[in-house]
């Protein structure tokens, strides 16, 4: 059996509301006229109690307020949640508490309160350093506003990170180079850099289906942008420790590492996923996706869970491989194989290594820079059959 605590233990809390829906976003985020924060508080606290009852002896390493836009939560709500967490679990001495924030002045006004509640890391969705593109991405802030909010966050929180989306419409390699340098100048010690993904069911997805979304970089340009991103961030001392995440060594997001290393996490809030071990069996849990449905389920049925699947060892092995190869650390071959119950195809490993996509070093298997770019292809080869 895998040691449950091996990859760490974290708590993800989902806040499903935003001020406006961004056209590219397929997260569980909704725009509503009025939010009854007290009603939500009651529901969250109930779910925190339920989660704690299921994971009694764990030491909590991380908490992550994700969204949606968690910076729309009132400081007192965050405070109440943190209080309950502290009451329910034993905490690691170096508890990491991250909150995703949108960079507007309104939200910056709540930073102080979040800090007091115990938030010690903020991840800001800046997305672009160019006002035209911010508008095209449907964002409500300007570059100026974002910079101010970010500066304020740096003063307030010990750790800050921000997100950018690149490979946008009409973005050239040179334009991204310039934008990324200014980002690196601003950056503290962590950056998330995502290539724009056109997701089904989003406004961009629909425009694309109708043939409308013009000017997206082709495969070669997108690949070149990715490679340049890897090189520039490494030069600046923030190398990629995951496909889209860059940090100074030691400043990695510990919460996200739990996902990639196959650790344990509870999911609280609408649409939150969890992976928890109970009586030696690892489960995947899901909660009701729609905010209203989740609230109702918590209030009327006493819990928001909608699905609990016992993961077979083979499922766990696949998950470990496809999450683990994302990080620069890679995976332990023996651990993956033990879970899969079969060896990874040797010929594929050999071929992929010869072609420069993989490094097989002792028990570790990692992808190279070239392999990162085609990770899905690598995974297809490794999991074929």
């Amino acid at each position, binding site marked *: 059996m895998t040691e449950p605590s091996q990859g760490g233990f974290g708590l993800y809390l989902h806040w499903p509301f935003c001020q406006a829906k961004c056209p590219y976003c397929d997260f569980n985020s909704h725009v509503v006229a009025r939010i009854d924060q007290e009603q939500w508080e009651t529901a969250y606290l109930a779910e925190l109690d339920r989660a704690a009852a299921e994971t009694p002896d764990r030491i909590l390493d991380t908490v992550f307020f*994700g969204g949606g836009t968690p910076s729309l939560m009132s400081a007192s709500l965050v405070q109440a949640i943190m209080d309950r967490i502290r009451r329910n679990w034993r905490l690691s001495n170096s508890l990491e508490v991250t909150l995703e924030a949108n960079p507007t002045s309104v939200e910056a006004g709540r930073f102080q309160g979040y800090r007091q509640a115990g938030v010690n890391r903020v991840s800001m969705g800046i997305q672009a350093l160019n006002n035209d593109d911010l508008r095209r991405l449907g964002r409500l802030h300007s570059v100026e506003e974002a910079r101010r909010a970010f500066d304020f966050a740096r003063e307030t929180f010990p750790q800050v990170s921000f997100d950018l989306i690149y490979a946008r419409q009409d973005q050239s390699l040179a334009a991204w180079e310039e934008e990324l340098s200014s980002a690196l100048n601003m950056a503290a010690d962590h950056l998330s850099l995502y290539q724009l993904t056109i997701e089904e069911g989003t406004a961009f997805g629909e425009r694309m289906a109708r043939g409308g979304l013009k000017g997206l970089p082709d495969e070669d340009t997108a690949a070149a942008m990715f490679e340049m991103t890897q090189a520039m961030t490494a030069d600046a001392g923030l190398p990629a420790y995951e496909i*889209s995440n860059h940090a100074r060594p030691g400043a990695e997001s510990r919460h996200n590492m739990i*996902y990639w290393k196959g650790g344990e996490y509870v999911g609280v809030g609408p649409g939150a996923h969890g992976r928890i071990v109970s009586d030696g069996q690892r489960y995947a849990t899901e909660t009701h996706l729609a905010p209203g449905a989740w609230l109702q389920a918590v209030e009327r049925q006493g819990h928001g869970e909608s699905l609990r699947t016992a993961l077979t060892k083979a499922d766990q092995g696949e998950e470990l491989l*496809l999450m683990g190869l994302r990080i620069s650390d890679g995976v332990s071959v023996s651990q993956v194989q033990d879970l899969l119950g079969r060896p990874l195809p040797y010929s594929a490993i050999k071929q992929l290594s010869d*072609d420069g996509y993989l490094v097989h070093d002792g028990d570790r298997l990692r992808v190279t820079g070239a392999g990162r770019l085609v990770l*899905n*292809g690598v995974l297809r080869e490794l999991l*074929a059959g």
Partner: protein
Amino acid sequence: MTDLSHIRNFSIVAHIDHGKSTLADRLIQSTGTVQDRDMKEQLLDAMDIERERGITIKANTVRIDYVADDGRKYVLNLIDTPGHVDFAYEVSRSMRAVEGSLLVVDSTQGVEAQTLANVYQAIDADHEIVPVLNKIDLPAADCERVAEQIEDVIGIDASGAIQVSAKTGIGIHETLEAIVKLLPPPQGERDAPLKAMLVDSWYDAYLGVIVLVRIIDGVLKKGDRIRMMHNDSIHHVDRIGVFRPPMQTVDELGPGEIGFLTASIKQVRDTRVGDTITHEKKGADKALPGFKPSQPVVFCGLFPVDNAEFEDLRDAIEKLALNDASFSFEMETSAALGFGFRCGFLGLLHLEVIRDRIEREYDIDLITTAPSVIYNVHMRDGEMIELHNPADMPDLTHVDHIEEPRIKATILVPDEFLGDVLKLCQDRRGIQMDLTYAGSRAMVVYDLPLNEVVFDFYDRLKSVTKGYASFDYQMIGYRQDHLVKMQILVNDEPVDALSTMVHRDRAETRGRAMVEKLKDLIPRHMFKIPIQAAIGGRIIARETLAALRKDVTAKCYGGDATRKKKLLEKQKAGKKKMRQFGKVDIPQEAFINALKMDG
């Protein structure tokens, strides 16, 4: 049993979509054969695939009772026929069972290629022909022009053409009257020995084989012992009847009548279309002249994507063949594709229909290999081999020469597209035989190699003429030409399922087109893949499919693990729809699509 003078037998013929089946609907409905509440559009197109594609594939017979203006009660037997050229055989044998034809012409379109083909068949069969101008409810209808066209192009009198809207019912009464007044009654002797023409037969899960017959002489009764004259097999008739359109049993069928019999016959193959049926005792001594059998002209391999489904495929093919004598099959093995079947079809639509039915009704994913025609390969030693599959091409050193089948193609096209059509025919190695004008349209006749037509000629024709051209063809025989086998190599390995026979002069063009197509059809892999076309070891075209450049998911956090796993599952399922050749996965549809040419 009806007096001969009160019977009228006719087929409804037309170019595809000119409204035959809809006209049949109105004739059936207005005579009260089917109650209004049981009516639906194109009632006779009962097969799923017919309803889905909105076309007739199988000819259908219906018996209608009609009290005419003269006060007498008539029995009308109508046969609705398919319009598509692949099923021309259905039309020709239907015509042998009747004395007249309603020639339906869409009054918004005019005479088209199958109008001509069908009318010539009707003239050959000595039919009285009644022209019907259909769709007059549409604003674009131009009866005067179309009538003129019928006279000019076909050379039959169209002054009495009936103006009809099969959709709204205008002119239906006039049509019924014309059938009674203008078409001749059948002839035949009630007291003569039984002579029944076997017009068609098909398999029914409950009744066994159902045989459609036209009685020429004599009387057929339930309980009779009959003899099939082509092989002297004896059967006991257990049921006779007519179609209204549901089956209705009757006591007897007399001269001039059309109906069905069942006689515990197990397989369609035990009956021969065009055969003469007589009584076991006191039978006729001379059979009627038979029909030319229908011949498959297009061949391709059908292989299950999943090898394990071979037996299921065998089962499906055998079941379909039970009911379709013009579909042939034999087992085939391919180095790369494993076990499958080499199948023969009447044309590409026929191929598509059968393939669709296997995939849908039997839930088997198929790989269809490059369609081919039959080549006559003459060997040095004087032997002649019929080559159905390019993969079987014998060693060239033993081959003296190769002949290929040719067709006579008739194309009707508005003037403004004439140049495009001529270019297309020339590109396909055609030899012009005739070019005449009928009003503002040209009628082009070409001698073309069948292998240039079989595949995508019709699609190309439709696209270069914006759908305004119509096309019909007949086989005219074999001719020698400089043909070679072209192989395709993917990642340096020959893929026999992609081998084709091509003309030497066109090999480079074809080879280049195919490798370019394949480059788009095969997904990128982790390594680069050379794709080549070769003739006897010499590479004539080459493309390289670059290795995968970027395929990575940008965001993958807690909730995404499940999603990501599903995506991988989906990709694995997608991979099942591909076949592996060496290290390369080729998608199922690539085999056919690689052949589609843009020019």
